[in-house]
């Protein structure tokens, strides 16, 4: 008998070669409803999904698309106000959509395991790692001695497992915590593993190691994986099949490569186009206009001033680490970094967490003093600026930070937020400031009515636009973007990057872009500085660095971009 699976009403996927095998998990017509203060909200509608034993299926979608909700329903962990309101979740033929809590406790751990998203918050800080593994083994009726715990941990790739088992989560790095969570998720050898954005909080190179390891382990154990991710490149690289969800519905499903090469649904097409890990070029429009803009600006610029708006020379920042008994050791967060930033261009500093890239940004912003070295702005050493000159300097160099939730004051409405820098610098009167705020909102493509609203009423992308408008308020020359798009969904991220590129073209802005995401660098930067452990290991034009990286570290970073190997053949522009 041939097994025909209805993935969506339109698309049939033939389970060729798996004749007669029953699906491990089959989700049919699933609907999930949340009760909220303002009535019922249907988070998931008509979701279909099939996972065969040992197979990896990815659900891709932006935040709010219902991908995590669907996965949580499969393990019976919907939030208290959410419930399955229709359809079936068949696990080996048994409908568990409305299974009793007792039955779910039997299934969890043993049959369905989970690796959660954020390694920082998913381990209980008050228990030792070993104990958190032990209770999992014990709850599922498996041997839970010291040796068993060590074995589970070392299988997940934690070296020195005996000692590690006796440590607390706060003594682990993010990558190690994620390994511990993978160890816990797979400790009872479940048949299905739900991996909910298992690496989105980690650096790309760590991400790669962890996903590789997860793949090896699940292959060995024959575990089927339901991978939840917002990254289409990652999904295509890791999964046999991809299911795309949009606003609570499955819009497209099929074998990964096929779906990537030939997306049918308009949303999938947009997703493929804007997936940063798949884009192969700098945002073109901007680059062309950018050149033009800097040409236009060139005559206006004073001849004496070099083309380099920022010159970083032998920058060093040393922190003293306390090592007990009044002793301290020096730790160089930034060690001998030099590079120039040309006016009207974008320079990106890339590196993993702890590479010192944000420390460089803070020193350029004069938020932190360098231990050694100089930062020249327009040829002037910034460390020699008097308080008044520093105040003027701040007008010309503005930051945009990572977290659009944290960097806007929740008690200020949008007008006050954008107007504040103008008021602080005593620019114009009330009427002209209001006019300026309206202009700025136009520039960042937000309606002027946004002025009366508050940050919590806006989406992440809108907030980041507000942060950009605030940075632009003082007509700065240089904008320092510290992970300015890292917290945003791919589509929103693409919009914000386009906006930044347009603004650069129109206003001749210079960007210093701090990011861990090489894919973003590819899209926006002209020059790249690669940092590792405080040192600048490679610098060059974006094209050179991407096409012929010189350093092993840069190669490792590039290889680690999810989907890098699947990069689509570049279309002719």
């Amino acid at each position: 008998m041939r097994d025909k699976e209805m993935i969506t009403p339109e698309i049939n996927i033939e389970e060729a070669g798996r004749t007669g095998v029953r699906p491990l998990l089959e989700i049919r017509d699933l609907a999930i409803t949340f009760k909220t203060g303002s009535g019922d909200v249907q988070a998931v509608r008509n979701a279909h999904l099939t996972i065969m034993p040992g197979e990896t299926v990815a659900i891709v979608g932006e935040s709010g698309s219902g991908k995590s909700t669907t996965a949580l329903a499969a393990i019976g962990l919907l939030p208290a106000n959410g419930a399955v309101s229709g359809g079936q979740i068949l696990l080996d033929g048994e409908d568990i959509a409305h299974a009793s809590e007792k039955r779910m406790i039997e299934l969890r751990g043993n049959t369905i395991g989970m690796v959660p998203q954020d390694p920082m918050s998913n381990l209980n800080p008050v228990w030792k790692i070993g104990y958190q593994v032990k209770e999992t083994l014990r709850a599922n009726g498996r041997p839970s001695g010291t040796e068993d715990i060590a074995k589970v941990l070392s299988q997940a790739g934690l070296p020195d497992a005996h000692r590690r088992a006796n440590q607390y989560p706060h003594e682990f790095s993010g990558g190690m915590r994620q390994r511990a969570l993978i160890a816990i998720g797979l400790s009872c050898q479940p048949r299905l593993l739900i991996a909910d954005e298992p690496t989105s909080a980690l650096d790309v190179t760590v991400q790669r190691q962890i996903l590789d390891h997860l793949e090896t382990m699940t292959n060995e154990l024959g575990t089927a994986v339901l991978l939840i991710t917002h990254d289409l490149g990652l999904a295509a690289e890791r999964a046999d099949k991809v299911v795309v969800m949009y606003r609570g519905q499955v819009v497209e499903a099929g074998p990964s490569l096929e779906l990537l090469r030939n997306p049918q649904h308009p949303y999938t097409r947009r997703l493929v186009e804007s997936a940063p890990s798949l884009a192969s070029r700098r945002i073109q429009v901007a680059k062309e206009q950018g050149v033009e803009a800097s040409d236009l600006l060139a005559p206006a610029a004073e001849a004496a001033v070099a083309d380099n708006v920022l010159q970083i020379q032998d920058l060093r920042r040393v922190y003293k680490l306390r090592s007990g008994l009044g002793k301290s050791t020096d730790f160089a967060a930034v060690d001998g970094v030099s590079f120039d930033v040309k006016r009207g261009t974008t320079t990106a500093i890339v590196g993993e967490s702890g590479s010192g890239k944000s420390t460089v940004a803070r020193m350029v912003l004069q938020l932190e003093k360098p231990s050694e070295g100089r930062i020249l702005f327009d040829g002037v050493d910034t460390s020699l600026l008097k308080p008044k000159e520093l105040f003027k300097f701040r007008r010309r160099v503005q930051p945009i930070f990572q977290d659009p939730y944290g960097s806007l004051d929740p008690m200020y409405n949008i007008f006050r937020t954008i107007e504040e820098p103008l008021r602080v610098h005593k620019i114009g009167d009330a009427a002209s400031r209001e006019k300026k705020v309206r202009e700025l909102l136009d520039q960042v493509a937000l309606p002027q009515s946004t002025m009366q609203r508050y940050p919590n009423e806006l989406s992440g992308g809108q907030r980041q636009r507000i942060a950009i408008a605030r940075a632009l308020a003082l007509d700065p020359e240089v904008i320092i973007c510290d992970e300015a798009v890292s917290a945003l969904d791919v589509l929103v991220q693409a919009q914000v990057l386009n906006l930044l590129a347009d603004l650069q073209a129109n206003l001749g802005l210079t960007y210093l872009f701090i990011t861990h995401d090489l894919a973003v660098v590819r899209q926006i930067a002209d020059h790249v500085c690669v940092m590792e452990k405080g040192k600048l290991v490679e610098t060059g034009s974006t094209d050179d660095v991407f096409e012929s990286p010189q350093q092993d570290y840069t190669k490792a970073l590039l290889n680690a971009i999810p989907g890098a190997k699947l990069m689509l053949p570049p279309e002719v522009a």
Partner: protein
Amino acid sequence: MVRFILRRLLQVIPVFIGTTLLVYYMVFALPGDPIAALFGDRQPPQAVIDTLRSQYHLDQPFWVQYGLFLQNLFTFNLGNDFTGQPIAASLARVFPVTAMLAVEALAIQAIFGVAFGVFAGLRRGGWFDSTVLVASLVVIAVPTFVLGFVFQLVFGVQLGWAKPTVGANADWGSLLLPAVVLGLVSFAYVLRLTRASVSENMNADYVRTATAKGLSRPRVVLAHILRNSLIPVVTYLGANLGGLMGGAIVTEGIFNVPGVGNKLYQAVLRSEGPTIVSIVSVLVLVFVVANLLVDLLYAWLDPRIRYDQ
């Protein structure tokens, strides 16, 4: 850890000197003559007054009086009160009684406060939660002396479940009713604190992960919600122990408990400097030790807190 404890114990010295100095000075500065007060309306011969004055060093300047007090303290001789009784002996009589009362009240707060708080927090918005919240608000709003008299009347006199007053021979049983009254207000606070903490931790990611591991509900609640929720509660309970020891004046008065509160109140009425300062000194020690215990308990509950640095 040992270094931390030692350092904390050394900190007791300045705290101790500071508080005793302050209290001694305030007693010294009180208007009225304690010797004259001893004799009530009678006018004793001047010679008697002078003898008594020099006997209690009341004719000496403040610094000498305070110095003598400290000297006595370090020789474990607290001196006599104005009725001629050794202060040490009367402290040894009253402190155990109040300690029993405080421990009983603390146990009531901790056990019932945490238990009720956990149940309310787990089912936020349920009937138990709503009932308990309103009840705790009433308890907080009504002054202790009103609660005390009502309990005394209802449980002690009308229902006869407990002795309405404690009297000279205090034991665990007879102290139960005053302990309930004494612990009730803080019980309400502990309950609310636990409830808030539990309902916040319930939604923590690690709690969901614990459930996903296949743990039973009671295990998730005990190992992953309760322990993490206890951290703020423990702070409050520790700070409260000092308050229970020293602040039982009203409750001890209502139930006629021969404890620290009563003794302190009488000493204040008589301007008996040495007695007041002796009691306060012991209370300071209790406070310091209670806070030290809280800090140690903290480190045990939350391994991220380390004091050796």
